[in-house]
């Protein structure tokens, strides 16, 4: 990876995001709503990518963080009328902190395991959150869920306006992307990649790999919580459906589809999944086959995801083949197993 190519990639990504920000409000109202949702789930997918793509651990419990952020927002708004004005900023903060705190607790259990066992433990923990949402109906409304009183009003800006809310979401998305990018490019991020590639070697080199993974898990939870807060306000209601296994699997598939270890891959994956599921379903009744076929084809032909494969191709064209001929990391293999298990 040379400096020039990274600069080029960053510029291309910036131009693309800028285009999304400028063009989206001028398309159809439905696309505006859809892109808003895509950006929120992209934050969730990116936070998962930090674990899956960079640290090499797959979590099946990411819906828990989304759910916690969403339920916190809804409960504060419905029961305490909090977060309907400028204090929405505080809700964002609380949501992220709650996500981080929960993942700090979960991490104590989950980080003892790795591979499939980690998958199982995170799944179990997120099912606990689902159980709370479903059963504790005096607080969460049970299966009926909670209806928020309406989006916050920030001075003269009414977030009930879809365009205004789109820009709020876009801003948080951009900040998240930047923060995560800085993180993965930092020495800390590089050590995560080192853990992914060869954890034992990192340990021998003197790194506290447990702590590294634990911190990555907490950071990931914080961004999951943030996504949850934004999600609660986009649909105006929160229900146990947000915390189900399907939502966790969706997040995982978005990352796998777009390309683990690329950050923007999660964004692309969120875009593809939501577009196929929500947009295509307004046009044709057989959208599920397209989505299913897409997953299968990706796992067969693009095991590194769309962006991952693209990056590998580009690198192959530039760098001498000897470098590329080194054995592929086991990450690719692991992903295939995960994907297969989910389907």
């Amino acid at each position, binding site marked *: 990876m040379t400096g020039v190519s990274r600069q080029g990639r960053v510029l291309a990504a910036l131009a693309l995001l800028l285009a999304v920000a400028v063009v989206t409000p001028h398309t*159809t*109202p*439905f696309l505006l*709503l*859809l892109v808003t*949702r895509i950006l929120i789930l992209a934050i969730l997918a990116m936070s998962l990518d930090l674990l899956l793509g960079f640290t090499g651990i797959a979590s099946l419990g990411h819906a828990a963080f989304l759910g916690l952020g969403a339920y916190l927002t809804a409960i504060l708004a419905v029961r305490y009328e909090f977060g309907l004005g400028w204090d929405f900023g505080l809700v964002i903060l609380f949501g992220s902190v709650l996500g981080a705190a929960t993942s700090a607790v979960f991490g104590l259990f989950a980080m003892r395991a790795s591979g499939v066992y980690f998958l199982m433990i995170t799944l179990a923990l997120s099912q606990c959150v689902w159980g709370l949402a*479903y059963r504790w*109906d005096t607080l969460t409304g*049970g*299966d*009926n*869920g909670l*209806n928020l009183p*309406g989006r916050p009003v920030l001075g003269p800006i009414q977030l*009930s306006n*879809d365009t205004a809310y789109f820009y709020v979401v876009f801003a948080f998305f951009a900040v998240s992307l930047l923060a995560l990018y800085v993180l993965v490019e930092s020495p800390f991020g590089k050590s995560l990649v080192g853990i992914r590639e060869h954890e034992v070697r990192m340990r021998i080199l003197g790194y506290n790999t447990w702590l590294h993974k634990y911190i990555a898990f907490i950071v990931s939870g914080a961004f999951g919580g943030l996504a949850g807060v934004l*999600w609660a306000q986009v*649909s*105006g*209601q929160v*229900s146990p*459906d*947000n915390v189900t296994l399907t939502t966790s699997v969706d997040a995982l598939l978005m990352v796998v589809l777009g390309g683990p270890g690329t950050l923007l891959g999660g964004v692309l994956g969120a875009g593809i999944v939501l577009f196929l*599921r*929500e947009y295509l*379903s*307004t046009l044709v*009744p057989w959208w*599920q086959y397209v989505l299913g076929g897409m997953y299968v084809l990706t796992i067969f032909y693009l095991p590194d995801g769309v962006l991952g494969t693209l990056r590998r191709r580009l690198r192959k064209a530039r760098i001498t083949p000897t470098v590329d001929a080194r054995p592929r990391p086991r990450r690719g293999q692991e992903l295939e197993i995960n994907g297969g298990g989910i389907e």
Partner: protein
Amino acid sequence: MKARGFCGLPVVAIALAGLTAARADADELRIGFLMPVTGSLAQIAIDSINGFKMYLDDHKGEFHGATVKFIVEDTQAKPATAVLKAEKLIKQDQVQMLVGGVLASTGYALAPVSTREKVIYIASIPASDNLTQRDADKYPYFARTGWSSSQPSHPFGEWACANGIKKVVTIAADYAFGYEVVGGFQRTFEQCGGQIVQKMWPPINLVDYSPYISSIKSDADTIFILPVGAGVLQLPKQLAAAGIIPNKRLIGAGTSFDEFVLPQMGDEVVGAVGALQYSAALETPKNEAFVKEYRTRFGKVPSYFSESNYTTALMFDAVMSQTGGKWPGSKEFLDFLVKLKVDAPRGPVSFDDLRNPIQNIYIRKVEKKKMFGYPNDELWNTIIKTYPNVGQFWTFDRAEYLKEPAYTRDYPPCKYCE
């Protein structure tokens, strides 16, 4: 009404002049139909769409001069997706009303959208009690053409007392619909001397009920079931395999043996009794014609889901006949709607002032027999008793009723569950 509409016309025209698109073209009625077309509730969605479309096709896609644009969107049975699709229908397709939804959670998610966007939402299926009871004030653009969950349960409880049922175990899906159907039944059943001795709440979409079945109390004489989603076929089968039925009597919510699933059921459900506002075996000329036409076109008997949406279309048509095919405005449309008295396949239907239907409740018993001249023995929901013109508060005092909490997992409390 009409006169006021004409006086207001210039004002409206001026108000709309600057806007890109007027919401209501005078003679086009745009209806957004939200259904879980994919997933475990797909059969319900198909029955519902067919019901509405049949009425529409019978009238050449027009309600008294108003061309109907019927747009179906898939909710995937997820509340968040239902909201997204509803907003798409309102903001992009500019529908004048939303119709449909199935699960209680979808109903609760869509009702606030109607308030927020000032667009009518007609719940032809979602039956969550509070939408037309304790929360009715919050949703001024909401009306129901189907039923509220506990509406058939109240008379059903009294019927159970009068027919020798003493001790009942309930196995019902763990969400609002389950609580309300069971709660309504428990209330009237225990008032007349019956006892609910055990209440179990398995999750929605469960397919293996054996842990619940093995813990059924032996002293009960009757099992009340309400499975939802994937388990509707499974639960009666497992009860029969375990020898629980026919030793104990089988009763349940009307939906447990409804025609959307009845043709796929086996003889284990013969004799099962439920209560609902419709049965395909209702012997009236109107229903017979409805069943025959539906069966010819779609190859199966109509379910209550088909009838409910057919009747919804029929009601819209009746409103448009009063406005001469013109869209009267959201509030006005609802006003027309709730004043209607229609003769539907299910029988006479009118509305109370909380916008919930008043209608006959039928006690239906599954029997294997021939009906309407069809050659084969089939399962039919034979009507064994009719309670005419039942409202959502049954014979209770409305103010008193509304003061009490809604039916939940723990309310009414289970007094005899030792």
